[in-house]
């Protein structure tokens, strides 16, 4: 080992060590983000970056934020996370499910850096998880859909058959059925989070099947455009507000709003109260935001869902409240019973009444 490499190695070690130490009071807190998509995807990564910008503004010179976008899941994510840690970021948000194992690995290597992983289920002392209860938004969409559908057919574009999406389908169906017993739901799996052309085709297929409500669990606005073309079909904004399609077809939206959570976690870092926990916030915490309900929704329906929204926000009402059976008719929840979060987080079945088959 020559002198030069020796010096570099020690410097590297020093930086790595320093990265883990709490910042001196004068230094701003460095907060890093990695995104799976480009921030211009107008969906998932865009919403995370909006929240990043919001906290950067909120905390001013107390924090410095950086981000890396378009990070493929796997080894590249691990490197990007390590880079963020080596650069002295003390709080790092990994904003995609597929970053889970990479985040676990890097968190192990940097015990003094705090990590936050979105939508995952693996935690450590310096690794917290957070997610949003998107199914609460689906309860509102389901109610509007049940009230407004004329064909009694609701179309749902699913991305992947994972618990988050299954929760959404179940919640939408339960609440549509509650206000309209004749309603049925048709599900199309696109096997992508973002592929405008395919999403448009999926919407067209559902509309052809007679659906006059389209819900999407994918991020592009292509289904909105298809619905608009069809004329009498309503849709809901997904991830972002998609206000450009209001008042018709987009009648309201479920917005991923990470700002309150990021604000809380950064504040906890600044006052030293950060602990590893698992957060699953809904409408009540502001993490799920319901977009403006457009004029296309009849006033009494609007009033009904606004009441529902406030009951969801206060926690007075849980979208999965028994009695509920599973698709095969077996009992799931007794009257008045609600599931624990563990069951919900691993939801891999449809509820009774849904005819579609869940791919296994």
């Amino acid at each position, binding site marked *: 080992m020559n002198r030069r490499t020796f010096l570099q190695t020690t410097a590297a070690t020093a930086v790595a060590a320093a990265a883990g130490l709490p910042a001196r009071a004068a230094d701003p807190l460095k907060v890093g983000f990695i995104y799976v*998509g480009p921030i*211009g995807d107008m969906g998932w990564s865009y919403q995370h970056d909006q929240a990043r910008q919001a906290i950067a503004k909120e905390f001013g010179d107390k924090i410095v934020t950086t981000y890396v976008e378009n990070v493929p899941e796997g080894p590249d994510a691990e490197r990007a996370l390590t880079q963020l840690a080596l650069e002295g970021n003390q709080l790092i948000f990994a904003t995609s499910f597929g970053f889970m194992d990479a985040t676990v690995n890097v968190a192990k290597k940097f015990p003094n850096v705090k990590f936050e992983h979105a939508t995952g289920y693996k935690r450590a002392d310096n690794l917290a998880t957070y997610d949003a209860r998107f199914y609460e938004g689906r309860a509102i969409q389901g109610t509007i859909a049940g009230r407004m559908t004329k064909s009694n057919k609701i*179309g749902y574009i699913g991305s992947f058959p994972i618990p988050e999406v299954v929760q959404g389908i179940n919640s939408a169906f339960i609440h549509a059925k509650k206000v309209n017993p004749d309603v049925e739901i048709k599900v*199309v799996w696109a096997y992508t989070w973002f*592929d*405008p*052309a395919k999403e*448009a085709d999926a919407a067209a*297929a559902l509309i052809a099947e007679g659906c006059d409500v389209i819900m999407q669990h994918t991020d592009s606005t292509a289904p909105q455009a298809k619905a608009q073309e069809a004329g009498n079909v309503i849709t809901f904004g997904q991830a972002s507000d998609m206000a*450009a399609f209001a008042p018709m077809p987009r009648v309201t939206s479920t917005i991923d709003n990470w700002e309150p959570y990021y604000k809380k976690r950064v504040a906890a870092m600044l006052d030293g109260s950060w602990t590893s926990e698992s957060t699953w916030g809904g409408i009540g915490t502001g993490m799920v935001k319901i977009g403006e309900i457009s004029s296309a929704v009849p006033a009494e329906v609007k009033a009904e869902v606004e009441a529902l929204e406030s009951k969801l926000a206060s926690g007075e009402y849980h979208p999965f409240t028994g009695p509920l059976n599973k698709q095969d008719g077996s009992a799931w929840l007794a009257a008045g019973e609600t599931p624990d979060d563990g069951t919900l987080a691993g939801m891999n079945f449809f509820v009774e009444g849904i005819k579609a088959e869940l791919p296994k």
Partner: protein
Amino acid sequence: MILGGIDIVTLIATLMAASTPVLLAATGELVAEKSGVLNLGVEGMMIIGAVAGFATAVGTGSPVLGFLGGAIAGALLATLFAVLTQVFLSNQTATGLALTMFGLGLSALFGKGFEGVRPPATGKVPFGPLSEIPGLGRILFSHDWVVYLSLALVVAVWAFLRFTRAGLILRAVGENAEAAHALGYRVIAVRLMALAFGGALAGMGGAYLSLVRVPQWTEGMTAGAGWIALAIVVFASWRAGRVLIGAYLFGGITALQLQLQAAGYAIPVHLLSMAPYVLTIVVLVVLSAIHRRGVQAAPAALGRSFHAST
């Protein structure tokens, strides 16, 4: 018309619109490949067309100008490829792959600021009562003008390659560049034009995505359409008419699997998505077996650099 729970009319009408971007791109790539150049950068040219077309349409308020802008941007990128491969004699495969990378990046840079904007609508061609004909009306008379243009271009390219002298020269250049050169044809100039045409059509295909199919600009929105266009050219064994069949088949499989799902069938989506590619290989094998001793389906000079030594 309902068949096994699938509305055939809707399926056909959907797949026509769905296939238009890849049909345009594949028709363009066909002409480029006929001249003996394999441009793997279709994805890059499409997405540049998507952003340029979108920006032009939003800026001018005219979708027609938008499609023109998309075509020009695609052609410009193709010209860059043409200069590198034809003048600088760089390897076509590698340059094409680099072109895709470059196009994806450049489009994202230009697209900042156009996210979340809605473009002016591209209207349907008013066919009046014709579009009311049951079945046929939906299929034939319910589309926007670009769908008809894409069909017209297929016919035009077919006629051009088959009946015109210029088409003959183009094919000669693609079959045997040295011989064409010896006969006094300007190989490089022919290829430059063919590539630019290919780029223009790919650009228009991209613009169709951002102006009609989605319609919005988002990064990476072509999502692999350019690669499908390349597959279609191969499937079509370099025949314009078969490009149409290929585009509708590839577009049709996606539309069909989604409709089958919507109709309540549980289908193995990934295995079905594999089908058109497997079919393409089968077509290739059959063609090459037929032509074993005769003419090959692919242009003989495809992918090779040409340098006039005299």
